[in-house]
């Protein structure tokens, strides 16, 4: 199977597929309403570890893919960030129209995995090395591109959307979720002597 490197185009196409099918046909006001509803019914909609749209088997495979996109090593990865909770919630609410297409893509992914590993129970049940080897073959498919987009959104978007649990994604980047900052902002502006207008006078 060919596995061409990810192109900008293919990523944008994946994003396009997400948006087009999921698509906010309603716009943000309605999304906001959906979010409010989701918050209001937090007890009814699944909390962390509970699922609203995906089956537990589907969630296990998607989470395993997400955990290879941003793996857990000496720092937390997609798994610890609760990306799967974001993805499930997205498919249940603001990306609900994505659901059926995405599920079909997942089924194809699972079928391809079974073909290569007939003895394995699921993608999630493979060893990490086997998972990586398999993903290298399929990392330009619609399923993988969509999963990566959802993983990145779930890793770094506001925790109120269900992922980025405890700011895990932000901590990975070194992004400080604080509303007000004061200079100096970084290493290089600490001892800045001030703008020397003289240096610019000569044309």
């Amino acid at each position, binding site marked *: 199977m060919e596995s061409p490197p990810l192109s*900008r185009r293919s990523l944008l196409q994946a994003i396009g597929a997400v948006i087009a099918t999921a698509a*906010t046909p309603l*716009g*943000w006001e309605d999304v906001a309403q959906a979010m409010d509803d989701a918050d209001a019914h937090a007890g009814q909609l699944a909390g962390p570890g509970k699922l609203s749209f995906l089956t537990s088997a589907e969630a296990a495979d998607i989470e395993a893919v997400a955990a290879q996109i941003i*793996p857990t090593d000496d720092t937390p990865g997609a798994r610890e960030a609760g990306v799967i909770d974001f993805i499930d919630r997205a498919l249940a609410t603001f990306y609900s129209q994505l659901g059926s297409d995405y599920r079909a893509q997942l089924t194809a992914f699972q079928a391809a995995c079974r073909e290569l590993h007939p003895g394995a129970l699921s993608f999630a049940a493979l060893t990490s090395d086997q998972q990586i080897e398999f993903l290298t073959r399929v*990392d330009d498919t619609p399923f993988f591109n969509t999963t990566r987009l959802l993983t*990145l959104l779930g890793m770094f978007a506001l925790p109120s959307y269900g992922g980025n649990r405890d700011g895990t*994604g932000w901590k990975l980047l070194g992004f400080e979720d604080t509303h007000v900052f004061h200079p100096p902002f970084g290493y290089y*502006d600490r001892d800045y002597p001030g703008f020397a207008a003289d240096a*610019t006078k000569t044309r």
Partner: protein
Amino acid sequence: MSPQTYRDSDTVDFIVVGSGAAGGVIARELAQAGLTVVVMEQGPRFSPRTFRHDELKDWYLGGITNDAVRNPQTFRSDAAQKAELQKFKPALWYGRGVGGSSLHYTANFWRFHEIDFVERSVLGAIPGTGFADWPITYADLEPYYTKVEWEIGVSGLAGASPFDPPRTKPYPMPPLPVKSSGVLFERGARKLGWHPVPAPMAINSQPYRGRPACVHCGFCHGFGCEVRAKASSLTTVLPEAEATGRCEVRPESYVFRIETNKDGRATGVTYFDGERRERFQRSRGVVVCANGAETPRLLLMSANTQFPHGLANSSGLVGKYLMFNYSSRALGLFEHELNEYKSVQVTRILHDFYDSDPRRGHYGGGGLDARIGPQPTTWAIRTATEGPSWGSAFKARLKEFPRSMQVACHGTSLAVESNNVTLDPDLKDAWGLPAIRVTYKDHVDDLANARFLQDRGAEILEAAGALRVTKSPVSEQSSSMHLLGTCRMGHDPATSVIDKDHRSHDVRNLFLCDGSSLVTSGRGQPTMTIQALAFRAGEHIAQFAKRGEI
């Protein structure tokens, strides 16, 4: 809601279509001159308090902008192709809400230079393009640039740049505090003998005109400012217009036709209200400030038996000469943290390469600035397109976020007639109106200029001591937030849509003012010039109205 409201049956002096950078200014100028005004805005009126640091909403779900589903657009790179539906984002992206694109812009506020207005005379014709002089000069606009700086509020350092055009007053506020990207940019550029200067930004470095100073939260680009430190029409000129008691800002009012009578005069506008009821507001004059995409679309949708090719379109140029500006970039990774996600996007710029230079072998020039660009989510998505896209190597790249910056290189776009906005023959928006079809292909000189500027950006990063410098590919653009040139101004009705006072050549009481008015693209950062034009247009239109000349 505005304190003053009008009924559809009232004949107001002016309808202003669009509440953004230009519409807000013109509404204020007309209302303060004693005229009655209704501002029609297709989007909602947000309270600044509701603006959030929410990347998913504002970048991926059309939170405060047009979106790809309700406001779909098609794109093609030349007229021989079938235009494709843009599923991710509209090709022409703009703020949709009271304040328009001044809600989500970055607020870089450079003045155009003297050369921008007379470049065609200085450099000569460029075959295959509509390269032309403006009907006004920098000197005509200078008082209004000053007015923008003082009325809207711009932070900056006058006299810092040896390339700046003449000015009559300093900036009202000092520059914002420098960021690490600015320090590195300054260090690198000076080593090369260039002239980095503090960036002029329409963001308060100190409290100004009732709005607080910036708190450096970092969410300017693509977001509304909940602090109100970033100037927007929502928080500056529109409240001032409403305070006159003569201006109603009417949100969720989507104008889709300008009506005319047998004398060829505009009589008012037909629009959908929030409940999608079709309504007609009567007025003595109409000013369209709906942006470089929606202004030509509205004129084209207003075609009738008297104006079969669209209103104000005897030249055939409505929608033509669309210009995006080209923004190329060089990325730099440094040893220590910059934390560019904090504070405003840009604190240092340079204009050493602003003027076109025939020795480069192509037309074009530009300005460079130091910034990071996206916040976390978009950083991650962008990083996946520029190297390892999953796994440990990708994760390592993501962690470079606080040690990274870019030099953004803002360049010219030539006016090319085949780059344009037309009505899609098939696609409709959520209201059943013809969708925008965009045809656009960067001129070969625009691409050459983008690469030239990007090389200079990379040199700055190298000179500043970057551990790694990469250049993002320069390829043809298929989308933009800079929507320029589509109803250009000029003296000759055969080669322009509006005159030097923004009056349409064909309809005496119809005026157009926004990015569509620009004759040349400048070097990125068009909003400052759009607002200067709007202050000038507003003043002149009010004078015409008072003298009975509309």
